[in-house]
């Protein structure tokens, strides 16, 4: 039987197991929306802005591990997706973004709502396609999902000309993929694994530096076994939060610019740094030449280009984190490198740092943002999905909530996209309807995708939006305070709207909290609301700073502690 390209697209998505699409209609995707009108197996979530759709698909992907799918029309629809696509690209999130394109006969003529989408998205996608014939749709969708989810995951854009959506053809979903130029290496080279095992056996002060790659590879269990068996402390990047339990005695928590002092000291003093699924980002390393100066480096990553990009690896291992950690542990074990009580002096030193430089803040009478995050952790017993915006809210959320479970922290790490958290929370809540989902936000960030409140209300999503409202673009203000002589240029947001009224206008619940003693009660009340979002406007201490803070370009042990 012959079906249209648009029908073929939806059939192909079903073959890939897609259950939800986040999207926004428009002229060049009308044939696709016409098919979705009767579609039962795929739920379409209408956002209020294409950027919201991209972030929601990304948040959905992060909490479920599935490929997120978003859909938008040509031109402005597609360009509005780009911030979301770039966000997913920087954080290696599997995403398939489908865009309509003007009919093939109109391509290249500056037609209405035409944009060169494959050209625009080329630097921010793992791969992209312009589909001009209906017959190509099944193969392209098959390839797109394969590329998005395998190897180092990432976003793939599929731009489909309108006439290709309309044309009828005989649909058959391919069962094979033919991509001769794409063969990710999953298994680490035995010789390198042997070299790494030897290095680990000889090390006296090792540290594991784990990144988001642990989560993409679903390797948290293997990381835990590896660390416990070899008695090696673990620090995670912000993207790696949840990859190793924060409440574990070997946890050093986050490292880097706003990492814990003890994580940064441990990295600077270690004699072996085992990087797994992490990419030596500048927010982690600070001044690169002085990063981990006494350490040899083992670098495990599925992307060969990450190895040697920023830091030279003594032992490079290209492979999947899950498989490689398993293989490496076996190798160390068989070499007899797992005797009990290993690294005792080193762990004792770390314990001393932990006691001497704990993560802390000045507890004053005023409402402190850190305290709010601590209370969220307390009342949810650490069992919640925490989405964040970008800035101080993000760092406090990273520092003061204890992440014991993979895929429980959802934040724009690489791109640092303000306005990410709320739509991502929508995607997260749809992907995990059972979970308690928070968006920890600032008063700046929340206004960047506030329109998605409608999406959350319409879909009865009980997201808890915690606004740490300090009437400032807090992180920028902090830099201005510390590095620009307190010249608060364009960071004062005192003319914000009343966020409680705004939320209520959208049909959400909302409260304002001004005193520390009201925090717990308000949070408990928010948890009781199950059928709509609730915005908690916490009026917090205005000029609170995030510490520790490694000023840009400094070595990570040269941090300001308070």
């Amino acid at each position, binding site marked *: 039987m012959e079906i249209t390209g648009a029908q073929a697209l939806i059939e192909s998505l079903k073959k890939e197991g897609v259950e939800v699409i986040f999207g926004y209609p428009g002229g060049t995707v009308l044939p696709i929306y016409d098919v979705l009108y009767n579609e039962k197996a795929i739920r379409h979530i209408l956002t209020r802005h294409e950027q919201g759709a991209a972030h929601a698909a990304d948040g959905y992907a992060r909490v479920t591990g599935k490929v997120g799918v978003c859909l938008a029309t040509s031109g402005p629809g597609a360009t509005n997706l780009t911030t979301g696509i770039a966000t997913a690209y920087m954080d290696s999130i599997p995403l398939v973004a489908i865009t309509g394109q003007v009919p093939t006969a109109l391509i290249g003529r500056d037609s209405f709502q035409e944009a060169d989408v*494959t*050209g625009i998205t*080329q*630097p921010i996608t*793992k*791969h992209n396609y*312009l589909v001009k014939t209906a017959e190509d749709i099944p193969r392209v969708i098959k390839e797109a999902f394969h*590329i998005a989810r395998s190897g180092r995951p990432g976003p793939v854009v599929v731009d489909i000309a309108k006439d290709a959506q309309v044309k009828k053809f005989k649909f058959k979903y391919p069962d094979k993929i033919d*991509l*001769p*130029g*794409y063969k990710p290496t999953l298994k680490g080279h035995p010789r390198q694994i042997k070299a790494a095992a030897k290095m680990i056996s000889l090390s006296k002060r090792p540290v594991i530096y784990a990144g988001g790659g642990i989560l993409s590879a679903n390797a948290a269990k293997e990381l835990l076994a590896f660390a416990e068996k070899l008695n090696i402390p673990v620090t995670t990047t912000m993207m790696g939060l949840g990859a190793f339990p924060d409440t574990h005695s070997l946890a050093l928590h986050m490292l880097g610019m706003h990492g814990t002092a003890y994580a940064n000291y441990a990295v600077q003093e270690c004699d072996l740094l085992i990087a797994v699924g992490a990419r030596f980002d500048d927010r982690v390393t600070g001044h690169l030449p002085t990063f981990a100066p006494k350490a040899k480096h083992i670098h495990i990553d599925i*992307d*060969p*280009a990450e190895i*040697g*990009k920023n830091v*030279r690896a003594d032992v490079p291992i290209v492979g999947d984190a899950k498989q490689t950690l398993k293989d490496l542990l076996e190798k160390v074990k068989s070499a007899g490198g797992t005797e009990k009580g290993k690294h005792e002096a080193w762990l004792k030193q770390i314990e001393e740092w932990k006691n001497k430089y704990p993560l802390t803040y000045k507890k004053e009478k005023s409402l402190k943002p850190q305290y709010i995050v601590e209370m969220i952790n307390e009342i949810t017993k650490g069992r919640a999905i925490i989405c964040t915006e970008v800035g101080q809210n993000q760092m406090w959320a990273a520092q003061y909530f204890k992440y014991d479970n993979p895929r429980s922290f959802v934040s724009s790490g690489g791109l640092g996209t303000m306005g990410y958290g709320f739509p991502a929370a929508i995607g997260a809540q749809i992907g995990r309807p059972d979970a308690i989902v928070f968006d920890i936000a600032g008063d700046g960030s929340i206004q960047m995708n506030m329109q998605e409140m409608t999406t959350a209300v319409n879909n009865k999503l009980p997201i808890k939006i915690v606004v740490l409202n300090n009437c400032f673009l807090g992180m920028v203000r902090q830099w201005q305070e510390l590095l620009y002589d307190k010249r608060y240029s364009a960071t004062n947001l005192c003319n914000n709207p009343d966020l409680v009224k705004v939320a209520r206008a959208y049909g959400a619940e909302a409260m304002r909290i001004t005193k520390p003693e009201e925090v717990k009660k308000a949070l408990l009340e928010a948890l009781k609301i199950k059928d709509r979002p609730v915005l908690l406007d916490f009026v917090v201490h205005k000029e609170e700073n995030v510490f520790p803070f490694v000023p840009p370009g400094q070595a990570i042990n040269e941090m300001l502690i308070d």
Partner: protein
Amino acid sequence: MRHTISVIVENKPGVLHRVSGLFSRRGFNIESLAVGTTDKPNVSRMTIVVEGDEQTLEQIIKQLYKQIDVLRVFDLPHAESFERELALIKVHANEKTRPEITQIAEICSARIVDVADDSLMIEISAEKEKVENIQKLLDKFGIQELVRTGKIALQRGSNS
């Protein structure tokens, strides 16, 4: 250091943009780039001359491999490769200068491919240095127009 790399790609729309875009956004310098099809119609070969140290070269090769349409990448060691560049040079000529220009072309193993009243067109296929040399020699006559293909290269012998 200058490196010549061969990039074997699937002959798909946009592949040149993918490769050139990668170079510009990662800050790698392209000195020249030549593209053409190979013996297989669905496969093209790009010969790219780049400037950079060993670490940069390694990153370039790894980043190129990440492109789905890139099938193979290899560094062509100068000593083991046969390298050529083609140039067409249109130079001012009159009765007086024509013999001298013809002689230069002959010495440089170049060919005269077009003759007009006031100009000569010279074709040279040679290594980069020789192309630059003839260009220098012809300069004093007044070069009207010049076009160079950029380097193409293949590894010698039965390898690759």
